[in-house]
């Protein structure tokens, strides 16, 4: 397998980045996201969240539970700063 394959397209995080982070830190999806930025880009993790969860499940052994591993937070769509009250 090509380890330089991109997993998070928005932030251009590779398979290797994510795999090694989880392996080295033995961490959850949330911590992996904070460490690598996978799932923090423009699409809000819509494309890569399941991949990050799968890698974490495999390497760290955090199985899919009923709670959503990478919590959804507003805004769930990209919005301009002025919508949030900016100028």
């Amino acid at each position, binding site marked *: *397998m*090509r380890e*330089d*394959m*991109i*997993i998070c*397209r928005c932030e251009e995080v590779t*398979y290797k980045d994510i795999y090694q982070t989880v392996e080295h830190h033995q961490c959850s999806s949330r911590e992996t996201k904070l460490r690598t930025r996978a799932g923090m880009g423009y699409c*809000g993790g*819509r*494309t890569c969240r*399941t*991949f990050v969860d*799968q*890698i974490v499940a*495999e390497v760290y052994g955090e199985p*899919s*539970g*009923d*709670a*959503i591993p990478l*919590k*959804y*937070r*507003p*805004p*769930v*769509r990209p*919005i301009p700063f002025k*919508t949030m009250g900016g100028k």
Partner: protein
Amino acid sequence: MMKDCLIIGAGPAGLSAAISAAQNGVDVTVIDEFMKPGGRLLGQLHEEPDHVWWNGIEEAQKLFDEVLNQSIDLKLGTSVYHIEKANDNWLVHTNEGIYRGKTLLVAAGAAERSIPIPGWTLPGVMSIGAAQVMTNVHQVKPGHNGIVIGINVLSLAIARELQLAGVHLQGIVLPPEHLLTKGVSHPMDVFQSLLHLTHLAPSPLLKWGGLLAGKSAFIQRLSLQMYPKNGFKLWNISVQMKRVVTEIVGHEQVQGVKTADLTASGDIVPGSERTIPVDFVCIAGGLYPLVELVGVAGCPFKYIPSLGGHVPIHDERMKTPVDGLFVAGNITGIESAKVAKAQGHLAGLSISEALGKLTENAEIKRAIEHIEKTREKALIQFHPDIKKGRKHMETIAADFQKKEVSGQ
């Protein structure tokens, strides 16, 4: 202005809910970010076993006509980015301002799962649903000569639509085997997953597969060994369960794919590697419920793979444990458009009941039965265990209610 009910999503579920609620005198606003009403219906075109064509654009038009008939307020091109509760009412934040409602139905549908493959970020690589929207909604060909990676009911149905639109396809093949393609890249897994689809079309592949359903693992293995490497033709598209794309290649855009033949046990046949020229690639990894907004609203979830993954807990009347929050359609589990429509109809009635505008229980019972009948007859079944998944959710919701009542 305060509405009785806000509905997010103008797909078959949201529109049907708006209609049945409005018929009971509920004052509704439907919000959708797309510029046309109909949701995923707009891309659908398939032939039912009785040779009648299911034309999603026409179905969407019928619902839209009824919406106009009932003078239902419809806001298109309006994207919801946040929902919250304030003083017992719902506040729905959109790029067009804030909407307020006493009850809220989230009918946001499903999102597509992708499959990472080396080269999948090149322009010209798209999800199978994007190819469907380009072709059937915008009437633009995604390319002239493509290949589909991922063999499942959605990719078979959409490949057919591409073919009807005159787009040439090299075939439907498997993704490479790695940690993220478990269950969708091994010939045997894919072979077995297709066995429940034999009713889809009177084709050699599926008839042949149908003969094998229920046979021993040994017989299945044997038949997979005999499965021709060029695949079987389904509506003249070759479905190649023993060919893999290992990489998508191109300079600045897709120019080709590297493929190889597989043995029945999933190993690459040495010397079979070659590069096929293509100008677009579709990736089909299946669907999952688009639950982001109910997540933000604080609704609890249950992980049920046969429904597509994490689904909001809801009872058989489409009510969630969050007061005044309802769900319907693919957000509750991946099923066909007809089921989504039936669920929407029920949700509209439940909302009317919650608002005190409907007291007749018989109508709600009939709506529940109608969903079950529709499910029974559904042509497109995304998961063979859908009914078990639905039952599971019913018991979860009932347990949840008991706990609430006893104050645990």
